[in-house]
């Protein structure tokens, strides 16, 4: 028996493929994307009643194509032009499997450099993820009209830039792939909340990010960073069941009940990161995944292999330095050489404008002071960090450390 949930999963799997077929044949990505959304909606209404058609992708392509033609026709009528015969020809190849790169082309188009990050995120979730505007809006807690407008504008910008449904020039691909991965990681992090309540009406953004990153990895099995990003997400998300206490408060890594971690996700993440590190050029996502793997592999916080984590942070610091790497490395230094060493390192970097007064710097310093036994100073830093943070769960956690 096929459930509504199965149908939804199927539709979202097929959405980018149908869009690819349509956009490749007819151009005008924006109009095709609208047509595919309508076809998905029609399927979501009809299939549960009438059953899934024998060729679901063909069904969706035909419906989307008709819709696309109707819109085009009325546009043409409005311009008082004659219908062109070409419009009435049915699409060809709607049943042939799409090129393996179609999803990639779609991802890269959605992450076009003329768009803001938040527009790239919204467009990716709709065009590649097959989510509705309403679902995206609920996930981001903004009005539906806001996401609708964001998507409309994004498509208009893509059109104005002259971009077509085809892979970007070879020399632009690395930058575009970096943007795609950044967008996917952004979606993941947006969903990585501490809330334990399962809101059935809200799409799980972490699950969606993992699903899309999995597609990316499947299409680019030789890309170490795509594998690294997928591993990083799996290894991070695996800890989610232990991350929130029964009262909804954030539980720090060192105090989490590791038996609640998702062993299956950890196993998959570990195997991915192990094989990618052995085979591919190393990159920042792989290193972050490797760090997550060391945490996930430790049977207890006390048994964490901190020297290995420090070594990985050293590499990360050399390859992709940044404020969060600096802080992670300071913690690792403290765990290997003692809290004073970590604090000394923080003192060296706290003039960096990217870090000065940053709540993470304050939180890390508080933690290291606590480890060093200076509880009074630790409480002060925790209180400061709680005031500076922009996250509700972090604020709650940091406040809890001040008493």
């Amino acid at each position, binding site marked *: 028996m096929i459930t509504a949930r199965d149908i939804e999963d199927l539709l979202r799997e097929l959405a980018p493929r149908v869009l690819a077929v349509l956009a490749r044949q007819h151009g005008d990505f924006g109009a095709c994307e609208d047509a595919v959304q309508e076809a998905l909606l029609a399927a979501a209404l009809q299939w549960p009643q009438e059953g899934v058609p024998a060729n679901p992708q063909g069904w969706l392509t035909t419906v989307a194509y008709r819709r696309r033609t109707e819109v085009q026709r009325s546009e043409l009528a409005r311009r008082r032009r004659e219908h062109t015969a070409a419009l009435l020809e049915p699409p060809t190849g709607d049943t042939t499997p799409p090129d393996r790169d179609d999803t990639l082309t779609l991802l890269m188009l959605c992450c076009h450099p003329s768009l803001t990050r938040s527009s790239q995120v919204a467009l990716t979730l709709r065009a590649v993820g097959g989510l509705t505007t309403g679902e995206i809006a609920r996930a981001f807690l903004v009005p539906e009209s806001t996401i609708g407008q964001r998507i409309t504008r994004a498509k208009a910008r893509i059109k104005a830039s002259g971009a077509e449904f085809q892979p970007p020039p070879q020399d632009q691909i690395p930058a575009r792939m970096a943007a795609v991965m950044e967008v996917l990681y952004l979606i993941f992090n947006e969903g990585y909340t501490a809330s334990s309540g399962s809101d059935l009406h809200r799409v799980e953004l972490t699950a969606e990010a993992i699903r899309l990153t999995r597609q990316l990895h499947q299409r680019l099995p030789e890309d170490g960073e795509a594998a690294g990003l997928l591993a990083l997400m799996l290894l991070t998300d695996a800890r989610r069941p232990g991350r929130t206490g029964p009262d909804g408060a954030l539980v720090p*890594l060192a105090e989490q009940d590791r038996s609640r971690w998702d062993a299956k996700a950890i196993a998959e993440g570990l195997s991915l990161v192990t094989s990618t590190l052995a085979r591919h050029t190393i990159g920042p996502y792989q290193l972050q995944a490797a760090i997550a793997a060391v945490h996930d592999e430790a049977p207890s916080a006390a048994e964490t292999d901190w020297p290995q984590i420090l070594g990985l942070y050293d590499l990360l610091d050399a390859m992709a330095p940044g404020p969060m790497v600096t802080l992670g490395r300071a913690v690792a230094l403290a765990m290997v050489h003692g809290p004073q060493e970590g604090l000394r390192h923080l003192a060296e970097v706290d003039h960096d404008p990217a870090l000065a007064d940053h709540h993470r710097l304050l939180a890390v310093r508080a933690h290291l002071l606590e480890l060093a036994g200076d509880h009074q100073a630790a409480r002060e830093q925790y209180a400061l960090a709680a005031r500076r*943070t922009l996250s509700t769960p972090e604020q709650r956690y940091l406040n809890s450390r001040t008493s």
Partner: protein
Amino acid sequence: MKYAILINHNKEARDAWQSFSAAQRSEGYAAHQSLHDDLENSGEMVAAEALADPSNAKRVLVSAGSVSTTDGPFDQSEHLAGIYLIDVENVERAVEYAARIPEAAFGLVEVRPVLGASGADM
């Protein structure tokens, strides 16, 4: 990233507003309307509301299980007069929008980040 743009009023601003000509006031309303429209069109609007005068406010006090209220206005030099809730790329963009609010001429407009639900591992 969500930001609240808080528009405060004080006596100076109120006096200035009352001294304005009809044309000046229309200009003020138009500035708010165009800001509103731009936020809607760009897909950055979350909500926008103007608040009634504090003389319409009630302060609520719960003491030993019983609820009592005090009617406004209250003795305060500044009061919140309106709020925009926006979802933008960064704080610079939020400030850019805030600067278009007429009350910014009195230094009474404040941009404040909204707390999010996602958080890093500690």
